[in-house]
């Protein structure tokens, strides 16, 4: 099978990227050292090609009403244009089809950004539901757009340096807000726990923009560091921390599910019918070793499983997200089965790192 390429494929290769097959996409894993790239984002500014992710535009009258029903979070929280909301897309059984960000641009236009691997399935589901509940809505996949994230404490200043024209409109953008500027869609969002932007732009313009950022001293960051950055920031990864068989209430995402309002939404009845027995918690390994996905967690209340485990470059310790029995408390010690040993790990509140600083 031929791997799919983003508009920046040649740029990655020219910058010395080690390319890997990432869910059918030919993507950069790192450009030399994953650890250095991680530090670059925590202390300065880095850029990520996230063009494999998919924009979806929903246009037409009644789009807000449709999203009130389609999404687990409540789009009524979005009242000023440009405001963004993180939400799960649930199936009727209350499992997570995908997690996404929805941007309110106008009462007749919401933009959604979904994960790469789930995009086609998501859009099919959205269209199926729209056919029943909002047949006049126009749902458009925006595979024509590239997406570049610029993240780090110096992301803003280096972005202005690369694209002086963006500064006037974008510098007052609050976190989780977006603004459209000509052909560019600029959002103050990210997946690292640092300040920064995610910018959607026409595919043809992406290599030029990428080079302008590089010239301003923004270093390219691969998927390896993207994963350790998001794990330190305590952000879920679809397919690891949750999937279509997992309730958002057992994936640390209760804060994104609006069960209080009268509003009905897909999956609500299933969530109300089944109180969560497990929860997502942070782990910090106390012994020497590295926590990894799928390792078994032993507690006095029963077993659990690591859903995302790695080494935290900022804390210089191994950390993980794990789904464990709901009765396990913050501060408890649990054991993780690694090869033939049981190693001690402490249950902690996450995120582990925010704005460059360890919180553990």
């Amino acid at each position, binding site marked *: 099978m031929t791997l799919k390429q983003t508009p920046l494929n040649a740029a990655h290769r020219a910058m010395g990227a080690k390319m890997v097959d990432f869910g059918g996409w030919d993507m950069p894993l790192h450009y030399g050292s994953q*650890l250095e790239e991680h530090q670059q984002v925590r202390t300065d500014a880095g850029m990520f090609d996230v063009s494999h992710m998919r924009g979806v535009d929903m246009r037409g009258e009644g789009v807000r009403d449709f999203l009130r029903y389609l999404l687990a979070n409540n789009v009524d929280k979005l009242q000023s244009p440009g405001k963004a909301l993180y939400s799960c897309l649930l199936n009727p059984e209350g499992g997570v089809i995908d997690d996404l960000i929805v941007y309110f641009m106008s009462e007749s236009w919401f933009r959604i950004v979904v994960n790469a691997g789930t995009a086609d399935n998501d859009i099919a589901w959205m269209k199926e539901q729209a056919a029943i509940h909002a047949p006049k809505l126009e749902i458009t996949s925006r595979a024509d757009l590239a997406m570049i994230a610029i993240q780090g404490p110096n992301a803003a200043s280096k972005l202005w340096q690369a694209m002086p024209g963006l500064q006037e409109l974008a510098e007052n953008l609050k976190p989780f807000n977006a603004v459209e500027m000509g052909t560019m869609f600029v959002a103050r969002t990210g997946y690292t726990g640092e300040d920064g932007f995610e910018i959607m732009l026409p595919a043809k313009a992406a290599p030029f923009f990428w080079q302008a950022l590089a010239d301003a001293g923004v270093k390219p960051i691969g998927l*390896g560091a993207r994963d350790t950055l998001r794990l330190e920031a305590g952000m879920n990864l679809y397919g690891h921390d949750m999937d279509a068989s997992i309730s958002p209430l057992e994936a640390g995402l209760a804060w994104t599910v609006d069960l209080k309002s009268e509003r009905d939404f897909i999956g609500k009845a299933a969530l109300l019918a089944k109180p969560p027995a497990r929860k997502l918690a942070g782990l910090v390994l106390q012994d*020497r070793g590295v926590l990894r996905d799928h390792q078994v967690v032993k507690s006095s209340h029963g077993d659990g499983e690591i859903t995302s485990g790695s*080494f935290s470059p900022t804390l210089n310790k191994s950390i993980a997200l794990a789904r464990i029995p709901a009765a396990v408390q913050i501060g408890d010690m649990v054991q993780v089965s690694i090869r033939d040993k049981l190693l001690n790990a402490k249950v902690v509140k996450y995120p582990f790192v925010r704005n460059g600083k360890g919180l553990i």
Partner: protein
Amino acid sequence: MSNPGSLKYTASHEWVKTEADGSITVGITQHAQELLGDMVFVESPEVGRKLKAKEECAVVESVKAAADIYAPVAGVVTATNAELDNAPENINSDPYAAWIFKMKPDNAADLAGLMDATAYQAHVDSEAH
């Protein structure tokens, strides 16, 4: 960095140095450290452990993944490199100096079954295709 001609190699990407006293020193190759990326943890075998040829006996973990290290030949572990406890990144910076363990082979003749640098390079090239 090329693979030193003075060393022997395994198909599982360990290098093996034969010492004057007949013991061997084992590490992982340049190719292996490149594949794994930034090293963050090394689990060494217990000194005194008896190993069969090709038995899993140590683990190196990078940020990305864990990889098993195999005994190149049968024998007994005689030493481990404590420096790697605090500086696993030495494997990245100088894989042919950052040894992982030493062992006394049961049978010195077994070492003849290992690859030389040329054969190992051919093996690496064949895996790349």
